[in-house]
Each structure stands twice: as structure tokens, then as C-alpha cells.
């Protein structure tokens, strides 16, 4: 397959127009010694062959659709209504570029504007941008923004329960700056305090109390909030959040081995000029007709170059569209209902597994979608054993090495994830399989 429409006749016509004999003549500016190297890549295949090859690869992966699934840890299996992919598959959306020419991009622009409104509603925030690469990059950009907002303050303070990979990303992003990452609570040296709700291990946080404590120290309050949970749990905006970030993957986006996801980023009107990323606004044309445009562009790299608030250009626009379609498809009651369903099922599973002999769950804190199950044996071994029966019971936290800023996970800790996709019967089957685990001692 080549997708190249030029016939031999077309090529000759073009060359003739240029007064050339061969296309190679167009490359004479390239140093001759380096021109036309050997390239060891096989010749192209027919579409049928390509699909067969790709199917072979795909079939060598475990699909979550063919298993009993309780594995999360930042990427979740939620139901995706049919309408999401139907809308995303429209070429007018997915083959369009960034809407820099607003007159011929009102479809993308209005869809993003409505996305901003919906995420603003979920988070209780005034300003939402048109997306970042993922939740981790959004959180790292939020930390950089806090350093811009609080010159002189050099600390990025993390609450317990930030995703270990997010911390790694933040370390990379902050490698240059004089900023220091530490775990704990904000003080007068802190630019910001970052918490996650729910935390990496599913704990529901008391945002109001954390926000008050953070603001008392004069630091920005940054909440990494799960957007689906935010339809049920208290909004970060109602707890004084200055910046809210999130991973939008639960909103109608396939797991796809972890990407593309959707970095969510929200802030207050007051801080908009410090914000990274594109944002859509509504305005009018000369005839008074309303329309949308990319706005506050003076913050961005294509205008401000080295003084921009970030280098971000491409974002996750199509994934923002997916989230918007998801939220509109389920609607006000459906999103709140799903968010609640996840809470109830998580609680049911936590109680069920806590009652198993040899296993325990700390039920003194409320949890959302995930909880830590203390197993009678190394969690890795438990998971390995159950996976043989097609049951993925969760994530062995021993995967994550201890870091100065992260939690120190124990070898027997399994992070169990429950969504609306898991029926009561499935949860009961998980409990039974765990109870029957023979590998460990009590």
C-alpha cells in the first residue's frame, strides 16, 4: 500500500514542468556521500497482509475483555458507550488539524468549548484548558506553573498517595529548576501542595481540610482529581483548589496499553495568564455571530517562544472529544450514577475481601475504585497464581521501588480495582479465588 496517487504519467508531467529528468535531481542540496543510503526495512505489504500481521501481534496480548479484571493503578476499565467511537471515527474530527483557522474549525472548537464546560462542572473550576498529554504531564506542568506563580518559593510538596510514575515524570520535568520535591505538608517555602483524590491507593481525601492547611502556608493548592469520581465526591473547586489536574482516561477512552490518555488541567480566572496549554474562548465576528477561537495565545510557544508558559503544542484533542461525548452520552444522572456505582462496588469488594481469612483491608478510611489488600503471601505470587485462571486480581505494589517522595509499599500489598464493569458475581468469584489461594501461609 502506498496511498500515492501519482501515476507514471503524472510524475513525468511534473518533472517536465520542472525541466528535470529524474526525481533524484531534486535532492542535490544533500551531501552526496550521504545521499540514498541503504535502508534495511522490508518492502511494503498489501492491506490484507498488514492486517494479518497486526492481528498476530494483537492476539499475543491479554485483552481485558477476556478476563476477570481488577487491575487498575492509573488506567481503568470502564464502559465505553458505542456513540463515543462513532463520533471519534468521523474523519471531519480526527483528520482535522489544530483549530488555528477558526472559520473552518468551529466543529472542533465548539466541541472543545463544551468539553471545557463539562470538566469545569465536574471540578467546580472556572477555567479548563484543551488538554495535556496525560495526567502525569498535567501534574508536572501544574508544579511548574506553581513555581511561576510563587517566585521565591522553591518547594513542591507532595501529599502521600501520588502515583509513583507521576512522581518520576515530575522529577524529569523539574530536573533543571532549583525546585525541591518533598513529601509532607506545605510551609512558607512551598510553592504548592499537591494531593490526589482519590489517592493512588484509592483513599478518599479530605480536600477541604488539606486546602485550608495549604493556603494557611501561602502555597497553591493543587488537586489531582479523578474526573469520574468528581461527579460523586466533593469538587476540588469547592475546597479552594488553585489548580486541578486529572487523567481523563476513565471518560470513554480505551486503556490502549496506557495511552493515548487525556491530561486534564483546570485553574482559576485569576491565574489564567500563568496557565500552560491551549484554551478555547467564545467571541463574535463582525456580524455579531457567536463563534469560538483559541485564545490567550500570548502565553504559548508559537507567539512567546522562549518566554512561553510551556513548550506544549500538540495535545490530546481527540481524547478530549471522547471525554465530552462520554459525559454527554451518560448525562447528568448517568455520570453521577456511574460514579456512585463505582463507590458502592468498591465498598462491597473491600468488605468482601477484608472478611477473607488471611487477608485484610484497612477500612478506617473510605476508598474509591481501589483499595490495598494485604495478602497472606507476596502479592506478586498471588496475582501470578490467579492469572493462570484468567483472573487479574490487581496490581502488586512491590512493582514500585521505594523513593524519597513515594510511599514504601510492602511486598504483600495488592492494589485491587473495582469499576462499574465488575458485577457482584465477579467480585464474589474474585473473593473465592483469593480464599482458595494455596501458595501462601496464613
Amino acid at each position, binding site marked *: 500500500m502506498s496511498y500515492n496517487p501519482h501515476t507514471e504519467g503524472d510524475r513525468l508531467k511534473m518533472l517536465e514542468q520542472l525541466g528535470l529528468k529524474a526525481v533524484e535531481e531534486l535532492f542535490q*542540496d544533500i551531501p552526496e556521500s550521504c545521499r540514498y543510503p541503504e535502508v534495511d526495512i522490508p518492502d511494503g505489504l498489501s492491506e490484507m497482509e498488514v492486517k494479518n500481521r497486526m492481528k498476530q501481534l494483537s492476539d499475543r496480548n491479554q485483552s481485558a475483555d477476556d478476563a476477570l479484571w481488577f487491575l487498575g493503578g*492509573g488506567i481503568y476499565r470502564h464502559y465505553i458507550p458505542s456513540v463515543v467511537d462513532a463520533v471519534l471515527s468521523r474523519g*471531519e474530527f480526527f483528520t482535522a488539524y489544530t483549530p488555528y483557522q477558526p472559520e473552518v474549525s468551529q466543529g472542533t472548537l*465548539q466541541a472543545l468549548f463544551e468539553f471545557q464546560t463539562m470538566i469545569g462542572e465536574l471540578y467546580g473550576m472556572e*477555567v479548563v484548558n484543551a488538554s495535556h498529554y496525560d495526567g502525569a504531564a498535567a501534574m508536572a506542568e501544574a508544579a511548574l506553573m506553581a513555581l511561576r506563580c510563587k517566585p521565591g518559593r522553591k518547594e513542591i510538596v507532595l501529599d502521600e498517595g501520588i502515583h509513583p510514575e507521576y512522581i518520576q515524570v515530575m522529577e524529569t520535568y523539574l530536573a533543571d529548576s532549583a525546585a525541591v520535591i518533598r513529601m509532607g505538608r506545605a510551609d512558607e517555602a512551598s510553592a504548592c501542595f499537591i494531593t490526589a483524590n482519590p489517592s493512588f491507593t484509592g483513599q478518599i481525601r479530605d480536600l477541604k481540610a488539606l486546602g485550608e492547611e495549604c493556603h494557611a502556608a501561602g502555597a497553591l493548592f493543587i488537586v489531582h482529581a479523578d474526573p469520574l469520581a468528581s461527579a460523586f465526591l466533593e*469538587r476540588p473547586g469547592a475546597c479552594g483548589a488553585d489548580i486541578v489536574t486529572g487523567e481523563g482516561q476513565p471518560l470513554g477512552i*480505551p486503556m490502549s496499553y496506557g495511552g493515548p490518555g487525556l491530561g486534564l488541567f483546570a485553574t482559576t480566572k485569576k491565574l489564567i495568564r500563568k496557565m500552560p496549554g491551549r484554551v478555547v474562548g467564545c467571541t463574535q465576528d463582525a456580524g455579531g455571530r*457567536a463563534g469560538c477561537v483559541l485564545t490567550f495565545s500570548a502565553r504559548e510557544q508559537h507567539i512567546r517562544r522562549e518566554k512561553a508558559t510551556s513548550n506544549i503544542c500538540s495535545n490530546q484533542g481527540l481524547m478530549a472529544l471522547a471525554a465530552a461525548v462520554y459525559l454527554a452520552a451518560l448525562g447528568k444522572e448517568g455520570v453521577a450514577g456511574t460514579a456512585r456505582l463505582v463507590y458502592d462496588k468498591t465498598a462491597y469488594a473491600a468488605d468482601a475481601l477484608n472478611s477473607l481469612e488471611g487477608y485484610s483491608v484497612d477500612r478506617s478510611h473510605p476508598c474509591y475504585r481501589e483499595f490495598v489488600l494485604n495478602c497472606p503471601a507476596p502479592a506478586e505470587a498471588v496475582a501470578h497464581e490467579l492469572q493462570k485462571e484468567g483472573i487479574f486480581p490487581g496490581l502488586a505494589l512491590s512493582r514500585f521501588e521505594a523513593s524519597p517522595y513515594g510511599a514504601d509499599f510492602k511486598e504483600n500489598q495488592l492494589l485491587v480495582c473495582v469499576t462499574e464493569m465488575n458485577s457482584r458475581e465477579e467480585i464474589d468469584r474474585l473473593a473465592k479465588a483469593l480464599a482458595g489461594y494455596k501458595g501462601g501461609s496464613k
Partner: protein
Amino acid sequence: MNQNGISSLWELSSSGRRGVVIPRSDVPAAELDDKYIRKDAADLPEVSELDLIRHYTRLSTLNYSIDTRFYPLGSCTMKYNPRVNEQTARMAGFAASHPYLPESMAQGNLELMHELQKDLAELAGFKAVSLQPAAGAHGELAGVLMIKKYHESRGDTGRTRFLIPDSAHGTNPASVAMAGFEAVEVSSDDRGNIDLARLKELCDESIAGIMITNPNTLGLFEEQIIDVISTVHACGGLVYGDGANFNAIMGVVKPGDLGFDVMHYNLHKTFSTPHGGGGPGAGPVAAADSLKDYLPGPLVGRSDNGSFTFVQPAKSIGRLKAFNGNFGVLVRAYTYILSLGGNGLKAASESAVLAANYLLSRVKDVLPSWYDRICMHEFVSSGQSLGEGVHTMDLAKRLIDYGFHPPTVYFPLIVPEALMVEPTETESIEILDAFAETLRVIVKESQDQPELLHDAPHRETVSRLDEVMAVKKPVLRDIGRI
């Protein structure tokens, strides 16, 4: 009432109306302390499934897209996005695979990533590739951080400045600033190349490196690229390649052979993955021997028993993104490489360059290119020859009246009234001819009836929008909701 306007989702809403219905709960309601629960439900739309589909279908018709129009945006490589890529990315083993699957249960994904790393490295002449960056600018940040760490690891801490040609994309200076460097601009010479004499003056022990887009944003191959690179290397700096324009040179020259130390690819440009109205893209970053140990990790390697496994480069700058890059985009790009193969990729670049030169030759008497040279996959003209008081933006907007998406305008910054045209290899000669003819008509209109250009576009649902008002009176959410 007139049905031609497009309402907001909230205007279509009615309290209690449902689209997709969720299942009934099969577990008891659990308790939760009131302080954790939100008091008011989020005011999300309440629309039927039909109204939702109609809303988005109608919105989509307001977009120009590759699927509907010629979209000659310079520097963006708006080539056809093959449908087979969309199908493979949706195969269950890819789309429903979880990033924390045991490696033994994700061998298909890992093999795909390994093969893609290998092919990208081969095509550009590098030693290793990381697929982690989610976009071109993300790849730039990776590369610049790698160069920073390289110097630091050698105890060479005085290199605080990074050279950026004046024709560079805005992401280049923004990326070096994010990595803590001072961006130092290098001027272009009178043939559109990096000014070698100026470069030699600037190169000293304070220089960490240079970012070069080659072909550059003027659509020109740097004629002295070998000298440019050796000059920077001679002062101890390293050379970053911005692969935004890689579509011009696949199979024709390998940047690694020219001496580049590190480069990113834009899979959403060169490798046919869709732009998605802004993203997601993917910006894998490749490195030569000098920098391969610094790549963002993990990469995919192959162990002795033949299985594929994640490996962390020895001096990695760390992680740039959670999980495994924009994997779905990687699947599409790999599908494309399999489809075209090494021979097809070379042919694609040759055709892209031929098409750009052909198009230029059809319009250069009325819209001369700024530098009179053979162009690569795109060319830059100036709107200075338009009628009195008519600007490039007017020409761009008038193109919309004729059903074409405008080219990139006012970039690169060093060309006044710049018009940057990239046809790509997937457009037929008939479309190129029609576009050339339209440009000629518009140039003539600019002289005879300039008001036609000033007021354009005339037929879209909105005309030119007031961008100043958008900032002065910001409305960033809630239209039609209250």
C-alpha cells in the same frame, strides 16, 4: 424555528432526558461521610442519543479536514490518514490491553514497540529510540534534557546557552527554556541556510548545543549541514534534529549519517497518524552513540531467550510520561510502516518533494518563493506581491471561499507576509493544479477587487472572529448553559 444553527448541548437538554442508560446496581449502597460528598450534581447535558449523534455530526460538518479538503498546511504534513491504521489500533489485544500486564502477557505490544524502535532508528540512522514522548515538543524536551545531562555527567557545567536558528518553530526556544537554557538566536544567510560565519562567532564553551530543523522551515535543505554540525561539535556542543520535516527525506538521507546526535519524529506528520484536531500525536526520540544511554525510559529490549522486555537506559533522564507513550498512535504508525515498507517510505518522500516543487513552479511567477532554490516537501512564498493593502491573511481567508484550507501563514517569522505550503505526497496532480489556479485567481482579485479578500471568508457560519474581545472579555465555558 430555523434549524440551521447549532445549539449547545445544554440548549438541547431537558431535565430527566437520558442518552445511554447505565446498569442497575447489584450491590448495597455504601455509606460515606457527608464531608466527602459533593452537594450539587455536576450540570452535565441531558440529551437523547439521537440528539447527541446529530449534534456532533453537525459540528463535524463545520470543520475542514483532510478527509474533506486539500489541507496544505506547511510544517504539518497533512497527508492521508489510512483507515487500516484506525482498524488495527482498535484490535482488542491492543486497545483493551493494560499497561501493567505482566510482560509475558503483552509480548505483542512489546514486539510492536521493539520493531517500531528499530525501523525508526534505521530510517534516520540512529542507534536507539524511545517511544515515550507524546508529541513533537515532548520529544524536544527529552532531547534537550538528554544533552543537558550529557554535559553534566562529564562535569561540563558551564554550558548554559542553546543555539536556535531564527527560522525555528516556537517549540524549539520554548523547549530549551523549559530545560533551563538560554536560547541564542542564529541568523539565516541569504540562501536561507544557517549563517555559518555567524554560527562560528557564537560557538564557544558556553554552548550546550543547537536545534536544527532540516529541511528547515523555509522548506530548504541546509546546504552546509556538515560544516554546521562539525562547527558545533568542535566547540563541544551537541546537535538536536527537529524531525518535523522528516517527510522530505525518508530513504534519501539519514540525519544520523550527517552527524545529528538526537532527533525526534512526529508520527502524526510523517507516519500518517491523524492530527485529531490538535492531538494526540507521538514524538519518539532517537539518539546516536553519544546520547543513547540518556534516552527517556523505559525502552523495549530483547532478552537472550528471545522475549521482549522493558529496559532502562543506563543514564536515562527518566520518565516523561506515565505508562508507555501514546501507544495507540504507535500502533497506527507501525501499521503505516508495514504498509509502505522501506521502498514506499522513500517513494513517499520523493513524491512529496516533487509535488511541492511542481506546485511552486505553477505559482512562482505570482507568488515567488522567498529564496529561489529547489524546495523540499514545502515552500515559503511571501504575500508582499498581493495588491495594495492586501495581506497574506486575506489571501488565506479567501482560499476558504474556494473550499481550500489555508496554508500556514506568518511563519517562519523571518519571511514577511509568509505563506508556507506543504502539499504532501497523497494529493493528486489534479488537486495541485486546481490549488495553483485558485492562488492565481486570488492574487488577481487582490489587485482588482481587494474587498473580496478583506471580507473573506464569506460562506462559513462565522466570518473573522474578534480575537481581542476573546481576551478582553473572556468567555471560556458555559455558553447556552445558563
